[in-house]
């Protein structure tokens, strides 16, 4: 064993020859911790003194870490006797080669910088990226990590992120709630509008300003369709929506307004009375004598399917 070590030492030039390598490794190890310490300091200064967002602090910290660590590596290479001028000359060629090899990673890094400049979201924001909905837990140079609400971690490459549609749910303090309500055609709409607005004003989670509003939206298939719009604080959105929907339901019941169910009105022809039609339908026989005329479309369908009009 000793002989083997001695042979290796002799080949490397003895203990004196090993010194630069040991120094180099020492610089890399110590430098790593110094860079970490420096990066942590930068993050603290950026976050506490300049009041920056966690996102900016993380980016500043990572930039500081990689910068400091690069410096340490150069010092270590210098201790090993590597000519840095030659290294820098080779760096151009190396960069081109690396560019081809690490195209995706470089693309992600550049996308990460664009995201940093664009700032569509920050750490702890609730976002929806394409179909992924969750909270941003980290924004790194290569990717962004999202914790979904069913407690899964989703890693999205920054390149994909840059091309995606991003919905940020936490940027603004208030959100609008919309509840569609269907009421019978014969309802006193203005009275109902007034009473529902009054109901919403009494709800503690609904904002007084912007004022809640009840809009008459359209003539629906089965009744008049109203649109109830109210605003709530962002963090109360779900409970406010639930409370609002419940309050509308209770108020409609109190006012005796039924929610109309889907229905079809059947008009009977003059030559057939209702009881005959009902009995024919019960027996499974297609009604015959009752129809006085068919629409053009029905006739066309009947002809093409080989069924002649009665």
């Amino acid at each position, binding site marked *: 064993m000793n002989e083997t070590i001695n042979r290796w030492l002799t080949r490397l030039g003895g203990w004196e020859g090993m010194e630069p390598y040991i120094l180099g490794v020492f610089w890399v190890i110590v430098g790593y911790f110094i860079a970490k310490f420096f990066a942590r300091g930068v993050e603290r200064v950026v976050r506490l003194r300049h009041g920056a967002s966690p996102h900016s602090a993380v980016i500043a910290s990572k930039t500081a870490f990689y910068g400091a660590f690069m410096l340490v590596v150069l010092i270590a290479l210098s201790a090993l006797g590597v000519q840095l001028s030659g290294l820098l000359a080779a760096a151009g060629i190396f960069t081109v080669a690396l560019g081809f090899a690490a195209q995706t990673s470089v693309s992600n890094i550049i996308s990460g910088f664009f995201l940093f400049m664009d700032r569509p979201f920050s750490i702890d924001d609730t976002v929806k990226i394409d179909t992924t909905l969750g909270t941003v837990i980290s924004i790194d140079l290569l990717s962004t990590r999202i914790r979904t609400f069913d407690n899964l971690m989703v890693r999205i490459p920054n390149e994909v992120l840059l091309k995606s549609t991003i919905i940020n749910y936490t940027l603004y*303090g*208030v959100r609008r709630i919309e509840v569609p309500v269907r009421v019978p055609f014969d309802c006193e709409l203005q009275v109902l509008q007034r009473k529902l607005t009054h109901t919403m004003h009494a709800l*503690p989670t609904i*904002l*007084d*300003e*912007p004022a809640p509003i009840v809009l008459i939206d359209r003539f629906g298939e089965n009744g008049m369709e109203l649109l109830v719009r109210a605003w709530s*604080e962002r963090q109360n959105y779900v409970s406010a929506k639930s409370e609002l929907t419940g309050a509308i339901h209770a108020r409609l019941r109190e006012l005796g307004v039924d929610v109309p169910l889907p229905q079809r009105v059947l008009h009977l022809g003059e030559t057939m009375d209702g009881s005959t039609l009902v009995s024919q339908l019960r027996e499974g026989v297609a009604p015959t004598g009752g129809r006085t005329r068919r629409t053009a479309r029905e006739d066309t369908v009947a002809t093409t399917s080989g069924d002649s009009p009665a």
Partner: protein
Amino acid sequence: METRWPLQLSLDDGALEALHVYDKPLHLKRRGAQALVIDTGEELSTRHCALPASCNALRFLPNFGERALLAFPTPQLLCPAGLTMQVVLGLPLGLRIEALHPGGSVHLLDLPAPRTSPGLYGPVDSGQICTSFRAPVCAPDAGQGLDEHPICALDLRLPDETHYALWATIPLTVTNTTPEPREVSKIMLPTASLGLYRRPDRDRLCTSQVQMRLLGPNEAEVLVDNGPEGGEAIAHSGRKPNAHETRRAYTFLHAYRAKTGLEHGF
């Protein structure tokens, strides 16, 4: 009979178990040396609360809450050109409960004022959440003009029917310096500069005087002034009584673009 704030009750006082706040029961019962059971009578509302060592009494104080106030004068105010109008607005107050001990006091609980709800002052993308309420309006010389409004029934009642009012009036002066008559539909008041006082002439609470100068169709200048002459300041929100701060007028926009989308037809 109406009495003076702050109300201080010993922990051994039986009255603590039969208080009525905002017409609802509030039961406070000491449990052991360092605990208090707070029960508002509603389902799942009971709390087991820690008390500081050697706590001997509870203090009750009216307060505005943490947020700024957004008052909607009801009915709206209309100030003709070049005139100054004086009104008083009704304001519901919250209730703060503190535990007193030889070293000072500890904040236990805040009961929010009823008949209030959150409201946004400013556009939806950058506004400020305030405590909003429909403020009944009365002329300052109309005497008991506000008394019939439900806000003026808010109080804390002891078992012996002594009651402590939990509402105050905001003395408001509106000056219209524009050549057109102007309406005042709302007014935002930051609570940091707003004081609460006991009026010297009547056994009632009122806030600092508020002066509003209408500068244009959308803009006004609001100054929260001192309390009434001879008014006795009531400590609240951790501020000392009679604390005089430098007061500065601020610009108030009462017709900002809300950006709700409705203004664009959405």
